[in-house]
């Protein structure tokens, strides 16, 4: 039985620099985290998974369909969506409009429907709006629906990005440091939310995280990247005590990553 999403032997070079070397990765369900020091290639991996970069070698499949060579919007339409490390909302659009844009790949209206305001158009628009509201509700932003994204507080923007990604009805969600800049309390609440998403919608989630407490708490599996190579993979407890991981994070002297709240900083 093949996995929902699988990457094999992914290699990416930028000029002379090998950003990723022969990385294998698979996820079927639940939450899987990718950790590693800064510059380990985590975000590059996401960019390849979502079609923003090509890969030099290897293959990526989703439900057995090869993804490499597809455009980002085609990949989103297949059911993979993401958030960004440095929040990339549509700054001058309202929260609900941001979410509505996320639904774009699920809309099958034609130009003529829009121009004629056909019954199908009206129905779809009101359905979309209702769904957008319920998504905002889910991340706790319903009251901010009409606020322009750039005026939202930082934590809300992170959650809005999550709602926008969910709007495309993904089966696989890629989150790039979703708790960055959040307090421990906010981070825990967000993780709770993610757990619920997995339980309610059957979503699979790949998480890039620096917050080790979050990672250990929420992940079913953890993959560790260092200098573009996978150095460990397994359940959180195992990875935590892996000698290579400890070395990658702390150099040769060190204690376990757990003792430092945010290991990579």
């Amino acid at each position, binding site marked *: 039985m093949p996995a929902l999403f699988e990457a094999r032997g992914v290699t990416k070079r930028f000029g002379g620099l090998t950003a990723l070397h022969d990385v294998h990765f698979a996820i079927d369900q639940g939450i899987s985290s990718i950790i590693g020091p800064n510059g380990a290639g985590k975000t590059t991996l996401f960019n390849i998974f*979502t079609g*923003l970069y090509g890969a030099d070698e290897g293959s990526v499949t989703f439900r057995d369909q090869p993804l490499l060579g597809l*455009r*980002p*919007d085609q990949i*989103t*339409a297949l059911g993979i*969506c*993401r958030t*960004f490390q440095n929040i*990339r*909302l*549509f*700054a*001058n*659009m*309202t929260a*609900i*409009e941001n979410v*509505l*844009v*996320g*639904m*774009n*790949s*699920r*809309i099958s*209206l034609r*130009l003529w429907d*829009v*121009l004629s*305001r056909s019954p199908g*158009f009206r129905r779809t*628009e009101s359905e*979309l*709006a*209702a769904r957008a*509201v319920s998504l905002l509700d889910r991340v706790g932003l*319903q009251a901010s*629906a*009409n606020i*322009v994204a750039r005026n939202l507080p930082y934590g809300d923007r992170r959650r809005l990005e999550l709602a*926008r*990604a969910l*709007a*495309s009805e993904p089966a696989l969600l890629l989150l790039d440091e979703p708790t960055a800049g959040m307090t421990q309390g906010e981070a825990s609440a967000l993780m709770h939310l993610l757990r619920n998403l997995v339980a309610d919608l059957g979503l699979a989630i790949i998480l890039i995280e620096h917050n080790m407490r979050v990672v250990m708490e929420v992940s079913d599996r953890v993959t560790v990247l260092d200098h573009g190579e996978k150095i460990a993979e397994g359940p959180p407890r195992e990875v935590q005590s892996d000698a290579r991981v400890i070395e990658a994070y702390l150099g040769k002297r060190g204690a376990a990553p757990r003792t430092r709240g945010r290991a990579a900083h």
Partner: protein
Amino acid sequence: MIRSLIAVALVGLSALAVATFPRSVLVFLLFQGSLLYVFKARMPDPLRWGLLATSLLVLMPTIGYFNSYYLEVATQVGIFVALALGLNIVVGLAGLLDLGYVAFFAVGAYSWAILGSPHANVIFGGETFPLAGWWFYVFLFVGLGTAAITGILLGLPVLRLHGDYLAIVTLGFGEVIRVLANNLDKPINFTNGPKGITPISRPPTPFGIPYGEFFYFLALLIVVAVIVVNRRLEDSHIGRAWEAIREDELAARAMGVSLVRMKLMAFACGASFAGVMGVLFSAKQVFINPESFTFLESIGVLAMVILGGMGSIPGAIVGATVVTVLNLQVLKGFSLWLNELKNAGVTVLGYSLADLPTQFEPAKYERMVFGIILVLMMIFRPQGIFPARRRQRELAK
């Protein structure tokens, strides 16, 4: 209540003033200002729309009946409003700076000019042309389609470019179209070169309305259609996708927006408005040549959009009105006035105006007007005089 009374009084008085003074810049501006007041001031909606409809459908044509000059200005304003609304989609909504927009206007204009005049006989031989006048109505749609296809053809190769490179390429494209219009009088004479094409047929008008009124009403009708289309696009997933591209192209792609489709659609929609107006323009003018389709015109339309506010429909309308009136009336009016003073031998602070150099013609300084508008707006008010307002949604719970 008071506002409503003021509005009625303003519209009535200014219309009366326009009827009284045959060629006054000020009173015409006053008339337009009163329409703007009606549009913006708080008053019951039926009154607002009633006043606007009366002014545009009854007062303006009546004034025009006695004084065709104002009707001509109003028609030109209408043409530029449609152009500004078209460019607003491309620049304001989708954030693609198109510096060759007037090329689409040219495509529409030449499509009717060539086939609606005897000139087509030169190309195809025989005596079939000009097409009968009623074909004009068909050509409104032909012009729309041809311009939209041209927009797509231009869009296809330039899609990969963004920002300032796109701007330069569209500028180059606009220049190419103009050079072609100027030189395609050989080897086959398509455009008759700089000499232009004339006479271009005019259509039979319903109920025998005079041409001045006819073109005014047609321009008004097209403008209304363009506004409706514009609003419907804006309030749909298409408009949202355009804005998303403008805000963050990369994030938009990652959220499932197909850049190719959406950019092409923006180009095609914007171009189609210009194409329709091009057909109207060529019939109204009877004569066209490449001079009407220069870079200057493209920048003029851009200045209208910027002045009003990128992405804002009322902004584009106000911007187009102000800039057109500024060019057609204020600059020319100033020229005339200065000439009168010169001829009267007036002196200012001991300087006789009669000594003003003859080459100093204020009417010719359109570029300076456009330039000042663009720079000042960018520095002090990049969102324009009527910034696009975010739609506030009713949230049913």
